[in-house]
């Protein structure tokens, strides 16, 4: 991984990102077909687009879970385009926090233990006491101070996602990447979770990149990005139309 000179105001600078998946011997799917994207530090960026447009792949590449086949990606001033796996896992640990659509909490661990998990991977190691304190503080910040010792199956969907958010922010990452974090929640709970993420962004200056199908979420963002067929496309009326709530039919 190299230090790259880049605009310090940008946390992500992507140029010409291409990602092609092979399905069997002959079939290939181009998930990213040359994506250029700048994400300013402390901003709230929302990525929208139809299913299969490459939103999740973009998030995986930006979060260093996957590497691009072509292009350049600079995250937090480092060129991560062709970094080795081991360097990427360290980078992810310190720089990125993931929030998943299905929460991805470990069912056999309590909320506190789930949030402590990323701290377990830190080197040098933290003391058990420090890990507990940090995890508890993160859970209190998302309003779950009273649910520390509950397992995921004892929590509501909204609470589980809040544990997911606490886990993503416990290592104080530079960016939080959220892939449809409200996809499994009802509208009211989903709105609460989104509100919490906006709060994090406002109060702590936390950079957030969020994928959603909810146009209302995108409207409040600092930056709204539309994707189609692996590219970032201009905000066209015809693309917005199906995402906007359908007008009531007149009889």
């Amino acid at each position, binding site marked *: 991984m190299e230090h790259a000179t880049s605009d310090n105001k940008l946390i992500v600078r992507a140029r010409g990102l291409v990602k092609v998946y092979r399905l069997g011997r002959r079939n290939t799917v181009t998930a990213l077909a040359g994506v250029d994207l700048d994400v300013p530090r402390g901003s709230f960026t929302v990525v929208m687009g139809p299913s299969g447009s490459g939103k999740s792949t973009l998030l*995986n590449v930006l*979060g260093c*879970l*996957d590497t691009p086949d072509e292009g350049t990606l600079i995250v937090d001033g480092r060129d991560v385009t062709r970094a080795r*796996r*081991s360097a990427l*896992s*360290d980078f*992810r*640990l*310190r720089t990125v*926090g*993931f929030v*998943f659509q299905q929460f*991805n909490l*470990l*069912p*056999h*661990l309590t909320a506190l233990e789930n949030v402590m*998990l*990323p701290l*377990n*991977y*830190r080197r040098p190691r933290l003391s058990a006491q420090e890990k507990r304190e940090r995890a508890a503080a993160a859970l209190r910040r998302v309003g779950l101070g009273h649910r520390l010792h509950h397992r995921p199956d004892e929590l509501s969907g909204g609470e589980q996602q809040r544990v997911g958010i606490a*886990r*993503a922010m416990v*290592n104080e990452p530079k960016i939080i990447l959220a892939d449809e974090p409200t996809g499994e929640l009802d509208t009211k709970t989903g709105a609460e979770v989104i509100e919490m993420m906006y709060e994090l962004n406002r109060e702590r200056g936390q950079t957030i990149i969020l994928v959603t199908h909810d146009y209302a979420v995108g409207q409040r963002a600092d930056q709204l990005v539309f994707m189609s067929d692996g590219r970032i496309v201009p905000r066209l009326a015809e693309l917005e139309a199906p995402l906007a709530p359908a007008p009531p039919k007149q009889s």
Partner: protein
Amino acid sequence: MTQILRSMSRRRGRAALTILGVSIGIFAFVVMGALAEKMNIHATSAQRYYGRCIWVLDNRVYITFGGSLPMSLRKKLQAVDGVRYVSPRIFGPLDYADLRNPLALCAIAGVDLTPGHSPLEGLALARGRMLRRGARGEVVIGCAVARKYDKDVGDFLRVHREKMRIVGVLEPTNTDPDSLVFMSLEDARRVLAMERDEVTAFAVYVEPNEDAEALAEVLVHVAAREGVPVHTISPEEIQRNVGSALSIFNGIVYACTIIAVLVGTLGIANTMVMSVSERAREIGTKKAIGARTSDIFVEFLGEALVIAVVGGAIGLALAVLATWLLNARLAEGGVTLFIITARLVCAAFAVALVAGCIAGIYPALRAARLDPVQALRSV
């Protein structure tokens, strides 16, 4: 470690069955190993006890029981160059019923009690005293005899038609003296109804640096000249026979146990491979939140090792219990069939650890190498 135990506790039934598989393997290893240890200790103790001594036996019998040699042969054998001294012995069964069960065999050993020549001098007493020269109607017994007949110093032991006073009980030697009833040559002749100058064997002790095998041949010639057909068993011959018998025995025992342990190992591997497939999403999540390849590898290998070590400890505990029960039951017959040595316990743990490593490496590598994006997509 806590994480490993918590992961295992999620599928308790499967973990318990896998641990049971390993336990059975280690149980077999320890029980069979304890049997082999007993045989090995018996053989090495016997070699130490008998030392460099050539057995001269009646040509009509192979073992030291039965047969008849004239006492007069002693002087002729003693005169041979390289012979330190010749010790006459009389061996015979204590109870004829024992002949059907060689494992529980206790025997009469009539020995020369001359100071400096008595084979009892190399043995340690647990209680009482040694036989003195000219002892009559007295015996010193091995620990297995004491256990089998529940006798101690001061008691009387029935030896065929006579009752003999026990004056001493020997410390365990893990070899022949444990099951012997020592008495004077005269007493042995009387209870076994033998002639006045008759013995069943001569133990010929050899001068240091003497070629025992060559000397054994000379002894056969000397006896033949006296008109006594004998055969000999040299220390080298004992070592060869015992060594080859032991290596065959050890080979069979360890081959069987390796199969048992291998089955346990495959059980762990199977459980771990299934676990990796089922927990792909969890692995993906951990990688996404910063787990290194090595963290995942260590976690899965650790799980395999915990299964192996817990299984090993349970197997070992069961084996200790089983051998203790069997030994206690067999002790009534004066037999100790299993000895669990420190090296056997260490070997059992080493085998369990190696089994855990072998079984865990492949699944752990698979888990560690999972592509996080693919893993996150799995259900």
